[in-house]
């Protein structure tokens, strides 16, 4: 069942819209692009042709025969969903004969369909019900005969159920799973009366290949597949268009709301078919895992305490804010202006992030502000800005539909960015080639109807070596696009780079020992990328979270420039952002060295602009980055911080180091939904608001700014942006905004790439990709068209420097970390939903050889130890990972996988090296005892951690 505020046009708009053709439908002339179906043309003219098997997210199928029409001069009754409009056609959608035919079809359907509509979850929104009403059928004329009931309802999935009795075998679900999601979990089994829908080999949904994206449920015309939240009889009164608060795909949703006006409740989140990022698709997180917003763990009262050992004391907002402000001022008076700072969150809105950095810079007078993007995509900012001139991905997601060769490195889109992965998989099924560079056989390497042409299964930490080897092949085999480079790039930098990558030491053969990749595979990948047509690069944290993260980003940009793969559809260098607003938090000036729009604080002209707008003088020096803050805390020169929506105690590397630093702070103010791990070190807790409780904007990985809209009032009384205003006022720096739209207006005034953005325009256009300014008033889907933002593209030398984190006899394996589909980041939200049925704990993936050598079997408890710490988790023996490498996630605080990660970081940005840690793994029998001993040793040990092993 699609969203209650959506009007289905029956068939999709034609992929490549042709010249307009004019047809006459029921006497009304209408012009549509060539390739449009008669059904869609009629819908655009406001004429609803009855239909059941068609819907506008799926290719027309023509099976139900309900949409028949009459065409002047043609025999028979063609199906309007499969017949394309042709110039001059005269079409009738209503006639007595058509009515009779349609009644016959519906009569047959309802003969095998329970007619207890009043108690059905789809009542009022069921397409069979409304078609029956439209053609005038109230009951079946057939004598009761063989019917499909009783049949058991499959309730195995926590979020939706399948009631085969209600199924009309229209196969919309099957086609949605195949074409939209690309999982191919469903089939129509049997023929005629015996045909039925089955998941995988006839398994319950939960046990099947189904990934719970909900596409089948959204496209089902009846309640056969329906959300459980509907089956408990929740009424929906209206729908609000908003944006998912999970990943950087930034899917648009209709939040269907019920309950009362005082206590509104979200009944369903339905992907928005008009959504520019997702086009009606979603994944299990955004679609179903929103229940955390109402979870009883939400801390809804402000709290304070003098010491972190003390119990919390609930206080009024006024008291909490006054206390927080006076502590910050006391600490500044005693230890200096720069002894305080703040952290913005990639989970908060652009407006909230902008306010926090403004509070730090203007009210606190310091540039000690940073964001969690530090620990994920800061190298993207540095690398892309240096080479191309802008700290952002180059394409819109839809660009992938034009790609001929897709290179995925250090990203796992099917788990991390599932909705974009579905778009990518569609293109791969159409025949685009795929190169995967990853230590693990990620889902894309082999999935239904997709197989990577080349998988370079490199050793963690050798991205730069592999990218240099690719460049070596491209340059020495003469596969560069010289005219493109000559026109668009700085030639001296290109000549130096060419000479550098051509050196014999950068040949795939010379680097094979370091990378573990067969040279002929590297050569094949290089030739494919350089000569296979449009080459598009997609990368994730497996590129950035390394000691050479920034170098690797530059190496990717070098490859794209040298092969002419930038500046048009189908190509590009595209970071897949982790959290929903990573791009936005970076854009908004969250980094300590730059204002919004990536402009350095030392630039007097830019600083002057902000000084004038904010009425204070601003510090021209860069502030502390997150890891530097921890260092300064241990030194005693950094004593207070305001942390909005961020849990770095769980998410940041080398947990012991972070907790020692946090324990040394005098005032930590945490603003969050839950009492998270960081709140254990807090002195003031300010309740946060979920994305359902506020207005604002998020910016996704394709630079797309989308609105989030308030669905319910803030549960704790204030939206996050209002809390920042309260704190700023208490600090003696009042900021007056009545609505987040006014904050966006200020952002637009101060940021050239946002200068033409407004809420009014966002409401009108749906979403906008920045830069959006005078030159591009409706935004910029593709960047660097014609020329690079920095003018000429700049090649950088990318010498491969092995990480200092090396395996040795004590720590002989390399640990690398990642994500899984059902959980998100530190899991604070998803752990508080039914998503735990798919993943209730972090596990350690280990290759069968390494497992066997250690006597480890599937499901055994294992101890994982590095030079910084140790933790316990269960083993999963898997050939997806190469021998010598182990893999885990960090979604659960019990595991604290970051206890073992190290202080190593990217040379340019201090982004931590999460992806490479030397470890040992041992089988243990007493998990609890081991955990307790580890915890004890931890608390007895080290005021700070050794830096070098």
């Amino acid at each position, binding site marked *: 069942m699609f969203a209650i505020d959506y009007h289905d046009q029956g068939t999709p708009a034609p992929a490549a819209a042709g010249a307009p053709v004019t047809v006459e439908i029921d006497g009304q002339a209408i012009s549509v692009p060539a390739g449009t179906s008669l059904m869609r043309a009629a819908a655009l003219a406001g004429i609803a042709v009855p239909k059941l098997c068609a819907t506008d997210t799926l290719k027309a199928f023509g099976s139900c025969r309900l949409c028949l029409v009459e065409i002047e001069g043609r025999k028979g009754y063609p199906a309007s969903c499969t017949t394309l409009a042709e110039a001059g056609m005269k079409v009738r959608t209503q006639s007595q004969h058509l009515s009779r035919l349609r009644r016959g079809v519906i009569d047959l359907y309802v003969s095998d369909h329970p007619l207890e509509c009043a108690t059905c979850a789809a009542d009022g929104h069921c397409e069979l019900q409304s078609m029956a009403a439209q053609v005038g059928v109230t009951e079946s004329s057939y004598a009761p005969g063989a019917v499909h009931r009783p049949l058991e309802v499959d309730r195995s999935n926590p979020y939706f159920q399948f009631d085969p009795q209600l199924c009309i075998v229209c196969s919309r679900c099957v086609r949605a799973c195949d074409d939209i999601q690309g999982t191919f979990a469903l089939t129509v089994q049997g023929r005629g009366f015996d045909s039925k829908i089955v998941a995988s080999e006839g398994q319950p949904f939960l046990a099947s290949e189904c990934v719970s994206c909900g596409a089948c449920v959204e496209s089902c015309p009846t309640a056969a597949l329906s959300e459980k939240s509907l089956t408990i009889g929740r009424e929906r009164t209206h729908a609000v268009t908003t944006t998912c608060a999970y990943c950087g795909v930034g899917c648009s949703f209709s939040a269907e709301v019920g309950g009362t006006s005082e206590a509104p409740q979200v009944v369903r989140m339905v992907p928005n078919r008009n959504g520019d990022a997702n086009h009606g698709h979603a994944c299990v997180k955004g679609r179903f895992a929103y229940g955390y917003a109402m979870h009883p763990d939400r801390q809804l009262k402000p709290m304070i305490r003098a010491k972190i050992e003390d119990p919390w004391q609930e206080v009024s907002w006024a008291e909490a804010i006054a206390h927080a402000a006076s502590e910050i001022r006391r600490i500044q008076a005693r230890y200096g202006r720069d002894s305080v700072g703040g952290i913005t969150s990639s989970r908060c809105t652009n407006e909230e992030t902008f306010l926090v950095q403004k509070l730090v810079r203007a009210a606190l007078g310091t540039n000690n502000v940073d964001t969690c993007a530090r620990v994920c995509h800061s190298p993207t900012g540095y690398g892309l800005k240096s080479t191309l001139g802008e700290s952002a991905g180059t394409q819109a997601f839809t660009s992938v539909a034009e790609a001929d060769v897709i290179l995925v490195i250090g990203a796992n889109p099917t788990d991390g960015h599932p909705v974009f992965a579905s778009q990518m998989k569609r293109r791969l099924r159409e025949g685009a080639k795929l190169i995967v560079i990853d230590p693990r056989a990620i889902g894309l390497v082999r999935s239904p109807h997709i197989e990577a042409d080349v998988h370079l299964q490199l050793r963690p930490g050798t991205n730069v070596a592999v990218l240099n080897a690719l460049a070596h092949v491209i340059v020495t085999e003469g596969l560069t696009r010289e005219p493109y480079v000559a026109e668009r790039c700085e030639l001296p930098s290109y000549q130096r780079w060419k000479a550098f990558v051509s050196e014999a030491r950068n040949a795939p053969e010379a680097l094979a020992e370091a990378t573990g990749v067969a040279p002929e595979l590297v050569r094949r990948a290089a030739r494919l990328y350089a000569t296979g047509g449009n080459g598009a690069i997609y990368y994730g944290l497996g590129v950035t979270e390394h000691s050479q993260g920034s170098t690797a980003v530059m190496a990717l940009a070098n490859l794209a420039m040298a092969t002419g793969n930038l500046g048009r559809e189908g190509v590009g260098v595209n970071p897949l952002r982790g959290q929903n607003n990573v791009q936005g938090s970076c854009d908004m000036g969250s980094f300590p*060295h730059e204002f919004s729009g990536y402009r350095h604080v030392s630039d007097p002209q830019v600083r002057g602009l902000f000084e004038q707008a904010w009425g204070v003088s601003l510090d021209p020096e*860069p502030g502390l980055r997150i890891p*530097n803050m921890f260092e*300064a805390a*241990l030194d005693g020169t950094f004593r207070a911080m305001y942390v909005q929506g961020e849990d770095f105690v769980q998410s940041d590397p080398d947990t012991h180091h972070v907790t020692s630093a946090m324990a040394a702070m005098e005032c930590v103010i945490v603003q969050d939904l839950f009492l998270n791990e960081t709140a254990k070190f807090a002195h003031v807790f300010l309740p946060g608001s979920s994305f359902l409780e506020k207005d604002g904007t998020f910016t996704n990985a394709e630079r797309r700014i989308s609105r989030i809209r308030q669905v319910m009032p803030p549960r704790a009384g204030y939206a996050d942006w209002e809390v920042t205003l309260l704190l700023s006022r208490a600090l003696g720096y009042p900021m007056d905004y009545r609505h987040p739209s006014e904050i966006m207006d200020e952002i637009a005034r101060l940021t050239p790439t946002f200068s033409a953005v407004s809420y009014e325009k966002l409401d009108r256009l749906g979403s906008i990709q920045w830069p959006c300014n005078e030159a591009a008033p409706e935004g910029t889907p593709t960047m660097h068209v014609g020329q690079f933002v920095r003018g000429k593209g700049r090649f950088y030398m990318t*010498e491969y*420097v092995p990480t200092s984190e090396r395996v040795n006899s004590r720590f002989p394996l390399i640990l690398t970390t990642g994500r899984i589909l059902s959980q998100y980041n530190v899991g604070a939200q998803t752990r508080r939903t039914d998503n735990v049925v798919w993943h209730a704990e972090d596990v350690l993936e280990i290759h069968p050889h390494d497992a066997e050598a250690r006597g480890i079997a599937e499901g055994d408890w294992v101890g994982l130890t590095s030079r910084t710490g140790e933790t316990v988790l269960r083993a999963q023996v898997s050939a997806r990972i190469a021998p010598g490498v182990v893999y885990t996630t960090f979604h659960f605080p019990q595991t604290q996988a970051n206890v073992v990660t190290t202080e190593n970081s990217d*040379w*340019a940005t201090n982004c931590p090296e999460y992806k490479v840690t030397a470890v040992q793994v041992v089988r243990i029998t007493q998990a609890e005892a081991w955990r307790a001993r580890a915890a004890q040793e931890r608390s007895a040990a080290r005021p700070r951690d050794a*830096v070098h092993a």
Partner: protein
Amino acid sequence: MNIELLVKMANEISEFFATESPPAQAAEDVALHLRRFWEPRMRRQIIAHARATGGAGLSELARRAVETLAAAPPEPA
């Protein structure tokens, strides 16, 4: 701050510019990076360390860069 960590970071930055920049320019580029991205107390500390120890632990390029940094005006470029 932990000086060993600062030394390690300065060395890693230098490793990048050692191949990126022409030799005569490398120390200046490393120093510029430090000015643009290191908070003043980090810069002060590495300068003090270089002065006190003659640059213990610092690579040759990093040591020259810290010297350049120490000689430059306090405002980042």
